[in-house]
């Protein structure tokens, strides 16, 4: 196994131009550390599957400078240490689950004894022990996906590429697959996850890269990306009087001078960033305002002003940026509100 903190995938520049001068990948550069779950995210047609296929020699790259497990991209022998669950994969319908996973393992050079042993173990792990001698043509999509996951692990891989592994799997199955991925990480395997499901990626990925039109537009540790755009939510409560305090607080958080004109009407809603913030009237007759989405610079003066005006600070909660928000910010054109068309263009 590759030691922790070492990159198992280091791409300096990977490009793929299809015929017709269509750029599917353009100068992709990314790094995946050993033993981490790496998420490759992006809208449809961004080039996620193409990148994985380039790494696994299914697609021939136009340019591929980089290494996987210490060997140049495209080195066939390296693939003996790599597992892969393709998107919408199909197992031969005339094979049983056991035969199907053993067949794929044999193609990876796994010997017969090991194949027999691991097939039973892994099919048990994915919940198909009772079904392992049934033909896969009677399997549901979720069961086929589980069988595919078992097949991807048959050669005891150091890196496992999973392209939409929870596609077609029911919610219970999704949780089980998520647990399986976490277990892979505990075993020291690197998981390279292609997914549209940002919520899932957010829950389990250590690092992510966002691919748009064949380019990596963002990559980093999940924590860092979430902190990068983090906001604060301030909740303040006042008694019946103190209109000026409200005004001051509102002004300090950027509401604007016109708010002060509300005078003593503390129970009125306040305009805040184009919206009306209505207070909640608590049981003891006090009014509670919530100022959400404050950046770090605005939160501190607001806090000070609220305190100075005798306001009761209920909470100041740091709101981590959700992956979906980050993704939408990156992917969606702010002017049109639409995702870019597939491919990196010509």
């Amino acid at each position, binding site marked *: 196994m590759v030691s922790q903190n070492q990159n198992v995938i280091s791409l300096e520049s990977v490009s793929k131009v299809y015929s017709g001068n269509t750029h599917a990948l353009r100068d992709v550069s990314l790094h995946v550390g050993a033993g981490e779950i790496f998420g490759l995210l992006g809208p449809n047609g961004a080039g996620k599957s193409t990148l994985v296929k380039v790494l696994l020699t*299914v697609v021939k790259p136009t340019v591929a400078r980089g290494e996987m497990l210490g060997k140049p991209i495209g080195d066939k*022998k390296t693939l003996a240490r790599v597992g892969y669950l393709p998107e919408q994969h199909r197992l031969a319908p*005339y094979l049983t689950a056991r035969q199907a996973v053993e067949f794929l393992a044999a*193609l990876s050079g796994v010997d017969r004894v090991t194949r027999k042993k691991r097939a039973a173990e892994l099919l048990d792990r994915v919940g198909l022990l009772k079904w392992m001698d049934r033909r896969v043509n009677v399997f549901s999509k979720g069961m086929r996906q589980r069988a595919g996951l078992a097949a991807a692990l048959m050669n005891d891989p150091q890196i496992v590429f999973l392209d939409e592994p929870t596609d077609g799997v029911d919610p219970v199955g999704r949780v089980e697959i998520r647990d399986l991925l976490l277990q892979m990480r505990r075993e020291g395997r690197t998981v390279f996850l292609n997914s549209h499901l940002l919520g899932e990626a957010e829950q389990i990925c250590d690092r992510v890269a966002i691919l748009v039109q064949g380019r990596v537009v963002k990559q980093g540790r999940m924590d860092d990306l979430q902190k990068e755009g983090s906001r604060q939510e301030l909740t303040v409560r006042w008694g019946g009087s103190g209109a000026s305090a409200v005004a001051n607080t509102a002004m300090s958080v950027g509401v604007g001078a016109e708010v002060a004109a509300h005078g003593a009407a503390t129970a009125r809603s306040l305009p805040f960033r184009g919206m009306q913030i209505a207070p909640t009237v608590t049981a003891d007759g006090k009014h509670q305002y919530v100022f959400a989405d404050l950046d770090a610079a605005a939160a501190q003066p607001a806090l000070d002003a609220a305190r100075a005006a005798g306001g009761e600070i209920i909470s100041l909660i740091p709101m981590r940026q959700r992956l979906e928000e980050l993704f939408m910010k990156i992917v969606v054109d702010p002017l049109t509100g639409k995702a870019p068309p597939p491919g990196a263009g010509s």
Partner: protein
Amino acid sequence: MTAFTAILVDGYRELVAKNLFTLSMILSLLVVAVIGIGGLNEQGVTILGFTIEVPFVNSNIFTPADFYKLMFNSVGVKFWLGWLACLLALVSSAGMFPEMVSSGVVENMLSRPLPRWRLYIYKFTAGLLFTSLQMTVFCMASFLVIGLRGGAWEPGLFLAIPLVTLLYSYLFAMSALLGTITRSAIAALLLTILFWGFLFTVNSAEFLLNGFRISSIKECEAIQALMEKRKKENPEVDVSDLESEFDRNQSALSNLALWHRVVFAVKTVFPKTDETTSLLQRWTLEASNMKDEGDDDAEEVAATAQKQRRRGETSFGNSRAKQREVNLAHEADQRSRGVGWILGTSVAFEIFTLGLGCWLFSRRDF
């Protein structure tokens, strides 16, 4: 080796899962059974105790062993295995390559520590299982039938296994290439059948042209012999009619020879399906044992040939040369084609087809 074995086993499982394979096996055994229930007596052919009088197929002409070997070659190998069983095998395995290169499957195959060309060759080899397994069963059953019914234990029959498998491999190499290019089983099958038809046409055209060419040679020889005979009988005799006939035949011969050379050159490049299976006949049966028709006069032969033509009977068009001589010369000419030429040129084309398939498969993005 692990991967190769796995692909072979997978190929076998795929075949067993298809009803067509089982059906084909049963039909093969039925064909052997039909050959087995037939027999010979002095009047003709016997089937389940009934006699069908056939003047040219009876125990005076053939020994039982030769009869069964002839049936094995002409009905079993040439007709059943060389045509129908090959067609069933093509139908059954036409989907192998399109399926392998289809989305969702090809990723699993290519992302392995195995060069693509090797994967292609392994899959191709697995595709030959249909025919080789069927041939094995057929040959074993035929071996028993010829041994028990004909009294000849002929291990040479087992040569049919590699020969028919080889014949099928010419076609399957094309099917694999077309399946890889078109990614469609139907397209691969139809185009392969078209290719097979083309081979049949080229082979038949060459066979006929060669027959006519040899017939013309024999005709010229016969006319020359007749002229010499007449001059010998009467040195003053006028043979101008024979001379002009000779000139016409010479001219036809040069035309036929030219066309034969052209078709033969085309045929040389492509697989020789018919001649490949004929090799078995060459190795298991003696050269033609037709009864000699006697030393007829060329003029009598001409009269007979004219009568034959009036009755619509086909011959290679000779009027003065004896049909038997022409046939023997034609057969001798066919047999003079070396095994190296027949198999070598056919296998060379197959290697080219496979190489092209491997190259395309290795270059393509999936």
